């Protein structure tokens, strides 16, 4: 391991072995093996210095230390829940971490079973019959839902309805999918933080291929008219796509029971934690759409000795076989994050998961009440039930409060000039007393 700057520390070749391999191949050196015209030969000088392992670790740590140490009360689609130590320990086992997509199922039964279990948990949580192994993230899952809608809807149409409260970044991703699929996006207004059902009724028509709603919404409000939305979508032969996450799904109305055809969301909400927006796209749908589902599916089968075995299945939907007629271009997905999600759900169990979800309601309610008592702050702004987060009206400019809180060690979101948003989970509830005290100072 004395090779810093001399070669790859991960190539095991001794000089003698390299020599004998070159001899076997019949060339003088490795350069002779590169069939590259001289006109485009590169001299190898990227100008990137090598570092020893410890120096690499130290430099990365020093650089990352430029991130301020803040307790985050941020949410809006990327949530932090406490990850049990055992999840990181098991997921980091190198057989899981370094394996490939399971194209040789006979030596990948472990990972396949774990993904099958992941799918099963999401089937249970959504009430739908099919969940895939993962999409890139919630936004791309939403995009895939829209293209699924165009494939499965019986009549033509080109409109996707989206509430005005969806994160603009997610909508931006959807817009790119829509552009490729010749779809257009139309906006459904909200009323006090949830979908304005009357307005939706006015907008929806036969052009609509999909209606999207979220529960909870990006403002933490809980939708109360999901069944109506589902009925409206069904009445117009439009898919009803619901955005959620595995914690909320444990408590809130089951998507299948309100007529959802597709559920999307960030399943990395369990198992991964804060990762600058990295997560993995939950994608569940109805059995009817089996041949149109994007993404990988693990199925049960039997092996030659008659025992139950797992394998990737229905691969004829996928790009490596169907190419431009595939249901999606997705190849590398977020399998390892799905593994972590499954481990976290399993660790919580039904009791633990439900309790975690209930605390998302209780803690938000309690924190809102405490914030509301502070002069200059009014919470929650929306007269709804909330999950994890809520909006706070501020007398002072919201930006100023946010910046002063950052100095006190807290990260909160400024929605607009006079509104903040606060998100509380098991990962930051221990700091709520300090947050309230700081808010009292700066509001």
């Amino acid at each position, binding site marked *: 391991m004395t090779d810093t700057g001399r070669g790859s520390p991960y190539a095991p070749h001794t000089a003698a072995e390299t020599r004998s391999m070159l001899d076997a191949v019949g060339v003088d050196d490795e350069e002779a093996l590169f069939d590259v015209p001289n006109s485009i030969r590169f001299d190898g000088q990227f100008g990137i210095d090598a570092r020893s392992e410890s120096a690499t670790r130290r430099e990365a740590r020093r650089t990352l230390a430029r991130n301020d140490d803040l307790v985050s009360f941020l949410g809006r689609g990327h949530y932090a829940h406490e990850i049990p130590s055992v999840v990181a320990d*098991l997921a980091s086992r190198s057989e899981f971490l370094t394996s490939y997509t399971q194209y040789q199922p006979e030596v990948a039964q472990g990972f396949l079973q774990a993904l099958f279990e992941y799918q099963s948990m999401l089937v249970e949580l959504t009430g739908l019959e099919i969940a895939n192994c993962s999409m890139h993230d919630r936004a791309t899952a939403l995009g895939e839902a829209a293209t699924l809608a165009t494939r499965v809807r019986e009549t033509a149409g080109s409109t996707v309805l989206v509430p005005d409260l969806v994160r603009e970044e997610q909508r931006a991703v959807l817009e790119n999918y829509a552009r490729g699929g010749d779809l257009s996006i139309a906006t459904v207004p909200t009323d006090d933080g949830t979908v304005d059902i009357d307005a939706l009724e006015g907008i929806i028509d036969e052009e609509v291929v999909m209606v999207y709603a979220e529960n909870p919404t990006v403002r933490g409000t809980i939708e109360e008219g999901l069944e109506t939305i589902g009925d409206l979508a069904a009445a117009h032969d439009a898919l009803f796509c619901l955005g959620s996450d595995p914690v909320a799904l444990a408590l809130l109305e089951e998507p299948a029971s309100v007529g959802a055809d597709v559920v999307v969301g960030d399943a990395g909400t369990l198992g991964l934690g804060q990762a600058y927006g990295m997560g993995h796209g939950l994608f569940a749908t109805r059995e009817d759409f089996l041949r149109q589902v994007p993404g990988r599916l693990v199925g049960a089968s039997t092996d030659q000795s008659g025992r139950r075995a797992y394998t990737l299945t229905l691969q004829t939907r996928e790009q490596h076989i169907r190419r431009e007629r595939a249901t999606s271009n997705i190849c590398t997905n977020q399998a390892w994050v799905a593994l972590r999600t499954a481990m976290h759900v399993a660790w919580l169990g039904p009791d633990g998961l439900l309790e975690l979800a209930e605390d998302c309601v209780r803690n938000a309610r309690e924190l809102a009440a405490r914030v509301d008592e502070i002069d200059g702050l009014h919470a929650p702004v929306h007269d709804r039930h909330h999950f994890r987060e809520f909006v706070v009206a501020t007398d002072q400019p919201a930006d100023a409060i946010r910046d002063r809180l950052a100095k006190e060690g807290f990260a909160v979101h400024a929605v607009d000039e006079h509104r903040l948003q606060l998100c509380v989970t098991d990962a930051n509830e221990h700091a709520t007393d300090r947050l309230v005290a700081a808010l009292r100072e700066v509001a």
Partner: protein
Amino acid sequence: AYEPLLVEKREAAVSPGDSEDAPLPDDLTRDSLSLPALAEPELARHYTRLSQETYGVTSGPFPLGSCTMKYNPPLLEDVAADPSAAVHPDRPVETIQGTLEVMATLQDWLGRIGGMDAVTLQPPAGAAGEYTGLLIAKAYHEDHGNDRDEVIIPDSAHGTNFASAAMAGFDVVELPSAEDGRVDMDALEAAVGDSTAALMLTNPNTLGLFERDIEAIAEIVHDAGGLLYYDGANLNALLGRARPGDMGFDVMHYNVHKTFATPHGGGGPGAGPVGVVSDLAPYLPEPHVRETADSDYELYEPERTVGKVHGFHGNWLVLLKAYAYIRRLGDAGLSDASAKAVLNANYLAEQIDLEIPYGPFHHEFVASAGDRDAIDVAKHMLDFGVHPPTTKWPELVSEALMTEPTEVESKETLDQLAAAFEAASAADAADLDDAPRRTTARRIDQVEAARNPRLSWHAFDGPE
């Protein structure tokens, strides 16, 4: 040993409405939820066993062609596990300068490595990178008043190329290969035209062959007004020897989970950063990271941005690992990685007797199983404790065994692989039919899996 499903060990149901102090009214909650209910020691045993039934790079050679299954250093995991890296995407930029510095540095390094002027890190996978590149090409042509709706793709290209082109709204024009396995120049001349938005190319291609005429190819495509897209799946063949930018490519993606050793994780997450020449930089996804005059970092929206391809900033933790890998290796390490990857492929090819119709190849080669079924040979290789190569693809070679050992294999493990190739391809029909025999599961019935889809444990609720 057979490991039961989690629910088969212990399951329990809860009903949100049941508790005295239910925090929500009944009509807003679900009726019940039934999930596995195991204690931590039981989970630890379950997943430990499942891991042991999974073949990873630490289990042995993993020579999947075009997948670049190189060793994933735990150093990268340590770097990514730094609690300071666990930030929320809505944090104000002035509070996450560390994250932005890593991203800006990685953008810079990838640019140098690919010979590109600007790089976005947002695409979360290689296919997402292709899609991003094509969105950029589309926006560029639209901006220049060109109505170009065709993307040309060689028949030997990765399936994602075709699917990504379709997703971005293009028609695909498939380009047949020439007899030497490379781009057929006449066919290319015939294919390009006013509708050509881009040519997508892997170089070296999926046969491991360098497209020697790449400069002429670039000229043809550029002359027709098209752009050249580089699929970075095979970049591990060329580090330090040739750069897509220098070859004439306008857009490219990098697979950091291939070239830069971030783990494949059983199928992901990866990351598919996209590099572009300066003309295309205004089209990169937003937000983009850049250094400010006073050595801070900021996010901004590129002037003609194509918008977003990921809801946030891509797979940050994966990017961080790639950053650590590139820093660890530096110039000499990266160049050596390619040297040894190419040497290994050539050495391994030399040790096996199967026909390899095309060459000279670089980091991978495609052997033919001849009159054997490539899948049978692959399954039997499992019995010798190695992972087999990619099978039956590319179709240019009959019964293809597409083999990429990467630089991390030693002469010893290459010899072991070669022995497995030889033994499996020399086995008699009965042995091949019966393979694999020494694996957790024997040969799995794919037809049954597809005909009678059982996609969750709920399928086992009734009598099995």
